[in-house]
């Protein structure tokens, strides 16, 4: 017995677990009654497994007047149930037990108070035979009792008679919906004695045809007569066989699982192509994110930012490296980057001194993760004159959770841009949902939209973090600046020297000896050469700044696209992938629940 149980156990266990998993994955996606139905099946199965598995509960079910009670009495060998001509006769279920020790709790679970120990018979040992009320009379309570017990018993013996075997009430309400339970079903054509002998075979053949139409191919159907005893031995041996195997209970539960899983999985569960669809959907989104990223870049004002980066670079280069005599004029013009409030607040984890080749293609999310947990660096340096918000080089890391990135002043997305982003999101959802069954497709489309509210803020954060790197000041600016000041100093020295000479000449003081370069005196060389060199350096560095600005704008554009792509992946594609993955897991669970592998 134990051996059998172990042999049956794991398969049923894993199928039940798979069904429960499928039910919880389908929660909120599929119809509530299918989900709760699957849960109820699992619950029932758990209850049945904990009760006596050495007993097989077989129920005699059928229409009123088909002779269930007569058959029950004939099998029990005693007049246990009242048999009558007045319909309906049996109003409560009762049980006959063959070696019924230990089945008390099982019968309690079934809710059968009326029990009888039948005369011991070795061939039926372990059988609990239930005589059910009818399912088709005007007594509604009978039908409800039948409906309840049909869900619980291990083996169903449908008793029909020549008058009623084709009733819609039987076939439509019970046999067809229970077509998965064909292994735990027997059909008995009772009252065969009321037919002429030659008609019994034809009638049985017709019953067979109806059963096949119900999807119950292979269910044993036999003619019997409780009155004459014909066919009873055959029925008894069929029952005995099932009882001896002691696995009807698990077969029945397995059939329940199949029914529930089929109902949950819908038509897709049968053809088994579903998981392929889910994977294909994930692949399809890969192409869609380009359009989405483009729309998001547009909405985030990336072209504007990129332009500002180029202009800002030139602007700052001029301020840093221009001819000292005129560079202050430049400060009256606004800094394009500062006007967008880019680079005014330090984003978490940004290190302006990082070599530039580390920049492109690096997602902000990764940067943030990289620095998480590092101690807060000292901020003693404070904001510099030129760039008040720029953190001191080297140690601007923040502790985790303090990653406050100021909102940039890039103009908010216009209605047009928002509309384009929404259209792109819908396209992604639609492409990902293609080929999925209705409710799941809706869930996937919903998932694509689920975090679209956060998009604007996250994208702006990405813009602030990424473009902050574009505000880094190249080192050559400082060198050129020093050079500019040196040249300026030389020019100043020349001017002062010439001024001194002029003053002495004016005061008619004797002229000191004047060193010359060739024929040109030194002070003149210093003054003119300094001025010339200053202007030349300013022009050259302006040229360099122009090229640098362009390069920087290109890099920023690339980095921004990557960063925004990351955001769209995180906020749009990731939820879609999660939902598609959920669907794939659901289908896998359904398939496991269906075939037990």
């Amino acid at each position, binding site marked *: 017995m134990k051996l059998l149980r172990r042999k049956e156990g794991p398969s049923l266990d894993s199928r039940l677990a798979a069904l429960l998993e499928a039910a919880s994955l389908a929660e909120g996606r599929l119809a509530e009654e299918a989900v709760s139905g699957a849960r109820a099946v699992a619950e029932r199965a758990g209850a049945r497994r904990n009760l006596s598995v050495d007993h097989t509960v077989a129920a005699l079910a059928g229409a009123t007047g088909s002779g269930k009670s007569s058959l029950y009495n004939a099998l029990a060998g005693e007049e246990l149930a009242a048999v009558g001509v*007045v319909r309906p006769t049996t109003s409560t279920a009762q049980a006959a037990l063959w070696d019924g020790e230990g089945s008390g709790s099982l019968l309690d679970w079934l809710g059968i108070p009326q029990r009888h120990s039948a005369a011991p018979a070795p061939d039926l040992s372990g059988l609990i035979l239930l005589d059910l009320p009818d399912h088709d009379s005007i007594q509604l309570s009978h039908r409800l009792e039948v409906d309840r017990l049909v869900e619980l018993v291990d083996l169903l013996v449908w008793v029909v008679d*020549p*008058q009623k075997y084709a009733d819609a009430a039987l076939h439509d309400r019970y046999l067809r919906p229970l077509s998965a339970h064909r292994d735990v079903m027997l059909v008995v054509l009772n009252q065969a004695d009321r037919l002429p002998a030659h008609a019994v075979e034809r009638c049985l053949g017709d019953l067979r045809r109806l059963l096949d139409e119900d999807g119950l191919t292979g269910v044993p159907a036999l003619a019997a007569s409780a009155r004459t005893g014909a066919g009873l031995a055959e029925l008894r041996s069929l029952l005995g066989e099932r009882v001896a195997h002691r696995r009807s209970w698990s077969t029945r539960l397995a059939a329940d699982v199949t029914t529930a899983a089929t109902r949950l999985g819908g038509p897709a569960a049968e053809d088994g192509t579903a998981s392929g669809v889910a994977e294909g959907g994930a692949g399809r989104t890969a192409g869609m994110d380009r359009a989405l990223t483009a729309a998001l870049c547009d909405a985030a004002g990336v072209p504007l930012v990129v332009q500002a980066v180029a202009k800002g670079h030139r602007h700052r280069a001029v301020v840093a490296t221009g001819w000292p005599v005129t560079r202050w004029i430049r400060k009256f013009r606004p800094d394009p980057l500062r006007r967008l409030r880019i680079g005014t607040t330090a984003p978490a984890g940004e290190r302006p001194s990082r070599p530039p080749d580390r920049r492109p293609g690096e997602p902000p999310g990764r940067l943030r993760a990289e620095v998480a947990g590092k101690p807060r660096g000292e901020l003693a340096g404070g904001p510099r004159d030129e760039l008040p918000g720029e953190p001191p080089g080297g140690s601007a890391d923040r502790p985790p959770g303090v990653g406050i990135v100021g909102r940039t002043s890039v103009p908010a997305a216009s209605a047009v841009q928002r509309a384009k982003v929404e259209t792109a999101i819908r396209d992604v959802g639609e492409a990902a949902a293609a080929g999925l069954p209705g409710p799941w497709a809706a869930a996937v489309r919903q998932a694509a939209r689920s975090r679209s509210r956060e998009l604007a803020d996250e994208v702006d954060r990405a813009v602030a973090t990424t473009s902050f790197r574009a505000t880094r000041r190249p080192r050559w600016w400082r060198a050129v600046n020093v050079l500019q000041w040196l040249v300026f100093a030389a020019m100043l020295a020349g001017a002062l020297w010439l001024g001194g000479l002029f003053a002495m000449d004016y005061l008619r003081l004797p002229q000191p000896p004047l060193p010359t370069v060739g024929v040109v005196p030194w002070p003149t060389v210093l003054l003119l050469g300094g001025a010339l060199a200053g202007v030349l350096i300013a022009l050259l560095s302006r040229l360099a700044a122009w090229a640098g600005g362009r390069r920087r704008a290109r890099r920023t554009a690339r980095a921004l696209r990557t960063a925004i792509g990351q955001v769209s992946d995180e906020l749009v594609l990731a939820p879609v992938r999660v939902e598609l993955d959920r669907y794939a897991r659901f289908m896998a669970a359904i398939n496991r629940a269906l075939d037990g592998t």
Partner: protein
Amino acid sequence: MDLLAALEALRRPLDRELFPLAVGEAARDRRAQRELAGQLDDYLLPRLRALDAPLLAVVGGSTGAGKSTLVNSLVGADVTEPGVLRPTTLVPTLVVSPADRAWFMGQNVLPSLSRATGTGPGALRVVTSDALGAGLALLDAPDIDSVVVANRELAAQLLAAADLWLFVTTAARYADEVPWSFLRSARERSTALALVLDRVSPDAVGPVSRDLSRLLAENGLDGTLLFTVPEAVLPAEKARLPAETVRPISSWLTGLAADAAERSRVVRQTLSGALDSLATRVPALAEAVERQQAAFDGLRSIVAGAYAGGLADFDAGMRDGSLLRGEVLARWQDFIGTGDLMRSLESRVGWLRDRIVGFFTGRVPELQLRDALESGVEALIRGAADGAAERALEGWSAAPGGPDLLERLGPMESARLGRASADLGKRSESAVRGWQEYVLDLVREEGAERRTAARVASFGVNGAGLLLMLGAFASTGGLTGIEVGIAGGTSLLSQKLLEAVFGDQAVRTLTVAARADLRDRVRMLLEEESYRFMAQLEAVEPPGGTANALRVAAERIHIHRAELPLTTGESP
């Protein structure tokens, strides 16, 4: 006869499917509609047209109750095919006396069933028999409860067409739910009824018939004529019952055929019962139709609301001047930056430079600006239409009757419904072009009327129109801070320029007109979009006023009910 006219008026609206939406118990309502229409066609209308036509007794009941055997035994000939395989009777058989044959062969009663004699094909086999007296026909109906759906429906139709039910049940069947639901409806409609308790084993006759009488009394059918036929062991499957067991029934039937007054009493009982039942059935149906109507209104208002929201989205997009930003702004700056404006004003200098710039760059800034404006408006329209479609679809899948409607469309079709239609881009493009034409016309008109025509010409009518379009989006302002600097600045410039050309008030009027025109065009586009939803409703919606028509017809029937003559006339 007014009563007949009233019934015909009641019949007319029933031709259509009145319950297309799954609201409440739509299946039950549909059945009620079908039953009512069937009863009017098959029974009430023909019976009222010929009150003294032969009486039709339908032998109905469960499968295996022995209806066919009973009919054969009553007629004394093998007119129908009994058997052990269920269900036996598939084609109903009508047994008539030769005198009434002509009446029944004409499609008076049960006009929807084709007649067949002999072994010919047809939906209703007609057999003549001398055993039946003139004025009475027996119809062997299929079963009411077998797995064959067609049988059940046909049996219900035949029973609804009967003047008299000869309802057959058996000792094993008499407490079944299905036959009792028929008996209850017979009681509700006061149908003339006789019950045959068939196949009773001789020892059970007493208790079973007592129990059946009890059940009849419990269900308000006491006094029903009850015949008992004991089960006999038949020598063959097609044998008939011994004559003496069916004698009470056959003699009752013979008596009925002979007694014209009794026959007309039976006819009037069933007929007036059926007419009376209309007083409750029709208003119930009308109520159900109103429920459907309410569901339709609900679905329609969801769509209307969703698309009104779409138009509001579009308005919001226009109002905050945001169309100016982004692409439009960039192109506008191109427009200014390349000296296009200057070119327009000083056309002679500009012409040469424009040719040179155009030669090298291959682009014409003014056209670009207009393109940006167009694609912006188009994107806005598309977004609004998409959002509205999405909201409408979501609304439908939560509203009563909606999910079922969408399910019938199929997942592909309903997913398509949830997005803007595919050709929206093309249509919105043409709408925007139309709008531009309108704006240009406006400028031209205004230019012609005023003395500023010359200055408009110097601007180039196109340039002025373009500026006006920009003005349409920015005129409401709402720009603050830097945005004013970036976006407002340019529009402010265009505004000023335009004001210089046309004068302040004229610009304002033009802008309002341009904006209103664009809004109208978009509203029409969205209405076309929403029609995709509305069309789904209109395709299945019953005509308005159906409920009222039904109620009025029921009222008229009630009023003219008294016209029913108490005795049938002797005239043919």
